[in-house]
């Protein structure tokens, strides 16, 4: 459970630090006229904050899987499976998708529609290509006899890659909606959507790197 505990310790540390800063030396019993606008509003869009919270939840999910992986790995029946070379190509494709959305984000900040649209297409296309690639990897492995139930290492491989792809699918829904805004020319909405997608794509790329690294090293 070390991975999970480290993650949670960091997260809880951040939460407690933030709360202490918000609450220390405050005298709640003193009445005063409110100043400024609504509390907390104006710093970040609610959607961005929601994404931040969601990423914490997803990190918790993968950290727990990694903890389970490292505990289960210690047992004697663990037989590592070979990582097909195709996985390297898939990693590169996912990286390009992330770059594409970064490009779109930059374009959105400068209000350049072509950059936004091209970036969204690259991001979405690469995500689809990555998923197809992962499917091929599964077929390869299954064809060479590495079935999900034959060894826990295989089972973890299929579950972790599958879960990662499912998260990417969820991202594609938001990406599709954002593309709708991008082509209809709703700048504010497209801009927010692009930013959310870019952050989410970067996050899933990092998650993939960690999962891939874990599977390569064990």
């Amino acid at each position, binding site marked *: 459970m070390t991975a999970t505990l480290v993650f949670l310790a960091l997260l809880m540390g951040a939460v407690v630090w933030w709360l202490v800063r918000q609450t220390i030396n*405050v005298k709640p019993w003193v*009445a005063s006229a409110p100043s400024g606008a609504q509390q907390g509003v104006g710093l970040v869009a609610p959607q961005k904050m929601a994404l931040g919270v969601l990423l914490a*939840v997803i990190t918790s999910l993968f950290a*727990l899987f990694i903890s389970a992986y490292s505990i289960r790995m210690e047992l004697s029946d663990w037989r590592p499976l070979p990582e097909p070379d195709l996985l390297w190509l898939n990693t590169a494709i996912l990286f390009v998708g992330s770059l594409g959305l970064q490009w779109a984000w930059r374009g959105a900040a400068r209000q350049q529609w072509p950059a936004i649209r091209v970036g969204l297409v690259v991001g979405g296309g690469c995500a689809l290509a990555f998923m197809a690639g992962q499917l091929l990897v599964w077929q390869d492995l299954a064809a060479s006899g590495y079935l999900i139930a034959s060894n826990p290492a295989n*089972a973890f491989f299929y579950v972790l890659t599958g879960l990662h792809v499912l998260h990417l699918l969820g991202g594609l829904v938001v990406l599709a909606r954002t593309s709708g805004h991008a082509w209809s020319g709703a700048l504010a909405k497209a801009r927010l959507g692009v930013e959310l997608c870019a952050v989410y794509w970067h996050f899933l790329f990092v998650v993939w790197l960690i999962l891939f690294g874990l599977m390569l090293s064990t």
Partner: protein
Amino acid sequence: MAQVAHDAVTDADLRPFEVAEEPLYHPKTFIGKYIWSQDAKVIAIQYAITAIGIGLVALVLSILMRLQLGFPESFSLIDPANYLQFVTMHGMIMVIYLLTALFLGGFGNYLIPLQIGARDMVFPYANMLSFWFYLAAVLILVASFFVPGGPTGAGWTLYPPQAVIGGTPGTGAGIILMLISLCVFIIGFTMGGLNYAVTVLQARTRGMTLMRMPLTVWGIFMATVLALLAFPALFVSCIMMILDRLIGTSFFMPAMMSMGEQTAYDGGSPILFQHLFWFFGHPEVYIVALPAFGIVSDVLATHARKNIFGYRMMVWAIVAIGALSFIVWAHHMYVSGMNPYFGFFFATTTLIIAVPTAIKVYNWVLTLWRGNIQLTVPMLFSIGFIFTFINGGLTGLFLGNVTVDLPLSDTYFVVAHFHMVMAVSPVLVVFGAIYHWYPKITGRMFDETLGKIHFWITFLGSYAIYYPMHYLGFEGVPRRYYAYGETAFMSESAQDLNMAISIAAIVVALAQLIFIYNIIKSLFSGEKAGHNPWNATTLEWQTPHTPPRHGNFDEDELPSVYRWAYDYGVPGAKEDFIPQNVPSEEMAAARVSGEARAQGDGKADR
């Protein structure tokens, strides 16, 4: 042209929301208002009715168990397999589908927007989806009663291998439906939880600083954070167990013989499941307890007409309990076999968590001290909560120690402990909270006498049920047994005690009918309550309409907050309470002159 216009959007236009706030969705039809509703208050009531409905099923299951235990061999309908199924479903429903859903989905939805001065949750659509996922989870769970083999009987902890392997009731479709139902619940909760957390952080009205939030909101907020981070552990273990059960992976399932045959499983780790389960399971205790802590603080302050003692300490205690709750999980596993040093570590953290909890208890008692105590029905339930919580908490100190836990593990002492601390205590708060906010939710007053009868039977009855169980535990009577027969260690009177407990349980269960009757009857014939019958300070009592309409507050302006939620009995004030949105006289004077000046400036400009 349109292109140019869009490109001309500047940064200034994107502030403060970056994207213009969507106007509130105003449904026209009955279905839009009450079925596919996006109003947090309606969603809250949907959550509450569903949760209480399924909770009543769990209550009936517990009565069936008590009938078997109190009067063995009298009911041929209940066989050992049924009994285990009742135990399992009773526990799972009460902890997750009733308490978690009711506190977060029910009270969270109703109270967060109203108490922080928001019109609604920030993502109403996701909020609506959250309820429908929850309803689907409940229906899947209920469906498992009707499949061949019935629901799972693995105990609410669903430990493998016995949850999956033949011989346990409900290893057919029952366990699969249970696991799927949990996954659906978690997905639904995550949508709701994102909403609760972001709403508290982002949608507070002018002047509602974090340290002016009522403790109810603090409790629900911290519980939401815990749930968002802890439920993934249950999700992970459910997915892996579904795979073990359905396609024969060996995440948790060791090589074993079943019914005289070697199973296909090999090398899995049941202990891994226990770690994952309790990594969720212990924070779950506080997911239920923290909202109860918050609500009870507000109810006590309101009905004792006194500010809550040590508000800042209460907030920090909530945060500390939340953070600590993640590093105590293995105290549920002392008998599973672990390194003694681990046991020492987890015993220590478990005892440390008693410190912030004790701070809260002292502060509640000190809030009552020299308060102007009004023994209303919500207040009775809140005081009852303090009693039961201290009782349950103290036995927790026993069980948190490894050496004391070993002989008491899996006996009725444990059953008594967790029912006192996380069943009776939060349920008393649920009742207190329902009575407290009933006038706001319905606009009518409940029947006070019936409420008091309900309280006394429930409170004293709970003691009649659970106090003797401690004694049974000391005798070593094991939990989850269908029947005991002749044993060497149980005294003969243990059976009489079991019978007495069963009779008390039936009486308490029947008393809940008084509550339901009261709630339904008062809906039609209760006195009009007025907008603030308890003279409370928090914003939900200051709404222009009772019950609050869609949008909660005045259509043009959200309330501004000038003070914390606990200005009761302020020296020199005209009344014994000052609502949060009422400025002091100097502030009001300053505001009036400021507005006059602003108007004057406006005229000069023209």
